[in-house]
Structure formats: structure tokens, C-alpha cells
């Protein structure tokens, strides 16, 4: 018997890898200014992959294809689209950074970003723990290199830290995979679920596996106390790469976490939801409090990303379609906010990476009112104030947590949001109410402004008309297996 090869649900990854290989060959063979062609190839790859992903929304075949390796459900479609959107904006930002600083430019940026995107779109659809692990490594290895690509001192240090801690966390994840395999005799997520259902007696191995997998994925989503790498890497990496990975890595790792825990380990949910709740509580509190002490905007946004990982975990304590849907909505909204805010960071001054301190934001409104308004919108949304996407997202995850009986966690989240609002308001006050001290000029380049406009539009539309996507999110939250 030959296994039937239905490659349709795998087309997005094939397209992305093809575009990446074309980019690599072009970089090796072509001479002269190459970035316009690189950008065109990469954008074409992402657009075609998005089209192929959209076509999967109505896919009617088996829940998993390729011998159970790839899931075809709508969670995979929606998460892939979010990742591809983040990659689209990351490409625009990265191209601008290369144009501005040709000395630090590397043509490998484009293929590496596409490989990272491939890993991310693959991990959100992976229905076998082997594929989850391989996709995790594809995206991580690409991101380690992307982080250190400019070769500046801070970038290479960030790359080293990211690599060492990332490899450490991958080892934990893989040990978790081994323990699941020991407990159930399979690595396919649906079969793991079936093997664990109705089992009584000794569950030690499966519980150990759940803890190890949670540690491994907790590193990747930068949940406290596994967040140590986040501030250093976000600050040291080029701002365009930070924008891309802060959004796309979170979506990818959370989608994997949803699939592994809400499908594979569903039978053990009474054991792992308290762990998720504990991680969520530590993350929201630590992230919000430590963000207050930061003088660098990228570092501040990094700690804010830790807090947001906590909010998304808050939704996942529900471990049902409500919680998954709320977390998915949060991931989409957070992607738009974080890419937008890092895009603003990249163009606040023409000196880019050198000026990411808060002082560069003094009187930004006088220098560049549009940029200041966009940044204010993103910060207000990160704080969770209506009428922005951040508010709707927070309401969703808190509602899911309360529905699951975690009232204390929702209360803690609300309190932490209030404390964190100070962080964001401080920057807004600097931008609008303080006179500029230095003669700084903001970067007028068009490409980053496109990314900022996309982010701002999504934040506003999701905030004012959340009904546009709630149905999509709800149908994506029903996992088929």
C-alpha cells in the first residue's frame, strides 16, 4: 500500500521554500544592487503562499495529511495568515533598513526571513511532534542568524544569547517529546490524545512530558520565568527583525502550544491548566513591572511582550473553543500592535539602531505628527484601552479565564494592565507634551510607513468592528482531529 500524497495543505510551505532558494541563488550569482529583486521575489512568495493558505479555508479532505504530519484545520489557516502578514511587514522594514545602512546590509536577510516564515507556517499546521520539533528548529535557527546578521556588537551578543537559550529550550521540548512517546507509543498529536483518553492509574510519564513541553514552548513564547532572553534579543537584533519575530514567533509558538496541549494532552487538562495559569500570572506581573524600569523603547516593548504572552496564556487556561478563540484574536491583534510599534521605533530618527532610548521620543509630535499619532495608537492598544484591538482582545481572554473558573487570574490581569498603562502613557506624554530637546529628524522613507499604516488599520478595524473577524476566529478555534 502506498500512502496517498495530498500535497495541497502543504503548498504554502513549498512556495515559501522555493522563493527562499531562488533568493539564495540570486544572491550568490547576481552582481550590483540586488535588493529590489530580492524584495520582489520574497513578496511574491509570501503573496502566493497567502493565496494558497486562503484556499485551504474550505479544504474538505482529511483532518491530517502526509501520514498524519500536517493538519488541515482552520487554526492552521488563520495562524499561517497572521504569520505571513507579519513576514510581509518584516520584509518592508528590512528592505528599508538595508537601503539606509548598506554597510551592514546582507542579501541573506531575504532567504533567511523566508525560511523562518516557513518554519512558522509549518509549526502551526504540524500534527506530529516530530514535525513540530523540526519546524521549531527551522524557525529558531533562521532567527538566530537573522538576529546577528548586521554584525554589530550588540547584535552578535544578542544572537549568542538567543542561540544558547534557544538550544537549551529546544532540548527541553525534545525531551518532552521523548516522554510523550514513552507514555503513549506515538508522536502523532491526535493519536496521543486517543491514547491518553480514559487511561487510569499511573500518569507520571505523561505529566512529566506536559511539564517539559510547556517549558520548551514557554521559552519560545517568552513567558516568564523563561523570558530572560527576550529583552536582550529584542534590543540587540535589528529593529526590522525584532518587529517580525516579536509577532510571528509568538503566533507560531502559541499555535503549536494550542495544538499540543488542547488536542494532544486534552485528557490531562486538569493537570496542566494550573501550570498555564501560574505561567500567565508570573508573566503578566513580571512583564508589566519590569517594563516600568526601562529607558530603552525596544527593551520596554520586550517586557511588554512578556506581559502579553501572559495575557494570551490567560485565555488558554480555558482549554476550550472559547479560550482558543480569544487567544487567537489576541495573537492577531498583538501582531498588528507590536509590528506597528517596532516599525515606528525604526523610523523615529534617521539614525535608526543608535537611538532607541526614550529621549528620542521627546516632542515627536512636533517633528512628525503622523508618526506620533500612529505610535500613540499602538501604545494605547498595547495598554488595552478602547476603542482599539487591544481592548477587545483583553476582554476576550479575561472572559475565557473567568468562564474557566480562574477569576483570580483575570483580576490579576486587570491590575497588571493598569500598572502597565503607566509605561505606555509615559511615552505618549513624552511624545505629545514635551518640547523636543535635540534636533532629531524622523525617517521619511515610504516602506516602513506602509507597514505602520497596515498595523494601524488592523488595530483600529479590529477595535471598532471586532465582529468582522469573530466568526472567523470562532470557526478556527474548533480543532478538527
Amino acid at each position: 500500500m502506498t500512502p496517498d500524497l495530498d500535497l495541497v495543505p502543504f503548498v504554502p510551505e513549498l512556495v515559501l521554500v522555493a522563493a527562499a532558494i531562488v533568493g539564495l541563488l540570486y544572491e550568490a550569482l547576481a552582481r550590483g544592487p540586488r535588493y529590489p529583486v530580492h524584495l520582489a521575489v520574497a513578496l511574491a512568495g509570501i503573496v502566493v503562499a497567502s493565496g494558497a493558505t486562503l484556499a485551504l479555508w474550505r479544504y474538505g479532505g482529511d483532518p491530517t495529511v502526509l501520514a498524519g504530519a500536517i493538519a488541515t484545520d482552520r487554526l492552521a489557516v488563520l495562524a499561517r495568515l497572521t504569520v505571513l502578514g507579519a513576514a510581509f511587514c518584516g520584509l518592508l522594514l528590512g528592505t528599508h533598513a538595508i537601503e539606509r545602512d548598506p554597510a551592514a546590509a546582507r542579501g541573506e536577510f531575504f532567504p533567511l526571513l523566508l525560511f523562518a516564515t516557513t518554519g512558522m507556517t509549518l509549526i502551526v499546521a504540524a500534527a506530529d511532534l516530530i514535525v513540530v520539533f523540526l519546524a521549531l528548529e527551522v524557525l529558531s535557527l533562521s532567527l538566530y542568524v537573522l538576529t546577528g546578521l548586521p554584525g554589530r556588537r550588540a547584535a552578535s551578543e544578542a544572537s549568542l544569547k538567543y542561540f544558547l537559550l534557544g538550544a537549551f529550550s529546544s532540548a527541553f521540548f525534545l525531551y518532552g517529546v521523548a516522554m510523550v512517546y514513552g507514555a503513549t507509543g506515538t508522536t502523532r498529536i491526535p493519536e496521543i490524545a486517543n491514547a491518553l483518553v480514559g487511561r487510569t492509574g499511573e500518569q507520571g510519564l505523561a505529566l512529566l512530558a506536559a511539564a517539559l513541553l510547556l517549558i520548551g514552548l514557554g521559552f519560545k513564547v517568552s513567558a516568564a520565568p523563561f523570558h530572560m532572553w527576550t529583552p536582550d534579543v529584542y534590543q540587540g537584533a535589528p529593529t526590522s527583525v525584532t518587529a517580525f519575530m516579536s509577532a510571528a514567533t509568538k503566533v507560531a509558538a502559541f499555535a503549536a502550544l494550542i495544538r499540543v496541549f488542547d488536542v494532544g494532552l486534552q485528557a490531562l487538562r486538569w493537570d496542566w491548566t494550573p501550570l498555564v495559569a501560574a505561567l500567565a500570572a508570573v508573566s503578566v506581573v513580571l512583564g508589566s513591572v519590569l517594563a516600568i524600569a526601562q529607558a530603552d523603547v525596544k527593551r520596554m516593548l520586550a517586557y511588554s511582550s512578556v506581559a502579553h504572552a501572559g495575557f494570551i496564556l490567560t485565555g488558554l487556561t480555558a482549554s476550550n473553543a472559547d479560550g482558543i478563540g480569544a487567544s487567537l484574536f489576541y495573537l492577531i491583534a498583538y501582531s498588528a500592535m507590536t509590528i506597528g510599534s517596532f516599525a515606528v521605533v525604526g523610523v523615529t530618527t534617521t539614525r535608526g539602531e543608535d537611538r532607541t532610548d526614550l529621549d528620542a521620543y521627546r516632542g515627536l509630535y512636533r517633528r512628525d505628527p503622523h508618526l506620533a499619532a500612529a505610535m500613540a495608537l499602538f501604545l494605547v492598544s498595547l495598554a488595552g484601552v478602547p476603542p482599539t484591538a487591544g481592548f477587545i482582545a483583553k476582554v476576550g481572554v479575561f472572559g475565557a479565564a473567568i468562564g474557566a473558573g480562574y477569576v483570580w487570574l483575570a483580576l490579576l490581569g486587570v491590575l497588571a494592565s493598569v500598572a502597565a498603562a503607566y509605561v505606555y502613557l509615559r511615552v505618549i506624554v513624552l511624545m505629545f507634551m514635551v518640547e523636543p530637546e535635540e534636533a532629531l529628524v524622523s525617517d521619511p522613507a515610504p516602506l516602513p510607513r506602509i507597514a505602520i499604516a497596515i498595523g494601524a488599520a488592523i488595530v483600529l478595524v479590529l477595535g471598532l468592528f471586532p465582529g468582522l473577524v469573530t466568526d472567523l476566529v470562532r470557526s478556527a478555534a474548533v480543532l478538527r482531529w
Partner: protein
Amino acid sequence: MRTPIAWFVMLSGILFALGSLGVLIRRNALLIFMSVELQLNAVNLALVAFARMHNALDGQVLAFFSMVVAAAEVVVGLAIIVAVYRRRQTVDVDDARELRW
């Protein structure tokens, strides 16, 4: 007489713990990386032992995948460590303090 599977799993647990400890207490980036490799090999041992226990090959296949990934990790990791060494003539992670809170 066959050695019980549990012994192999216990040995892998010990190796994994040693690797974790190495990552946490070593200060040289290369030695930290070697400790991670020890952890990955502990995983491989557990996978092969479990494959034997289940009388199935999945675990051995996964062990091969993990070796390939470990090799790819070595390529990227050593490149990063060399890049850092060229820049600052040391790979002691305590000297990496450009980025601090």
C-alpha cells in the same frame, strides 16, 4: 538477561540533568553548547529505549531527526560563537554585558 528499559530511561534522565546543570553553571559559551549537546544525546537515548519498549521504530526515526537537527545547530551555533570571538576575543558569557537591564 535483558537490561530493564527503566535503567536506560533513568540514565538518560541523569545525563539530561547533568547537561542542564552544565548549561546553568558553565560560563564558557562553547562548554554551555556542549552541555546542550549532552542533553540532546540524553533525549536520543530515551527515544531509543522507548522505541524498544513499544517495539516500534518511530522513536529511532525521531532519534535520527534529532541528530540531524543537532548537526545543523552545531553549524549555526559555532558560526555565531566564532563571530562573537572575533569581535571581542572571548566567549565567556559573563563578558557579554552590552545588553543589560
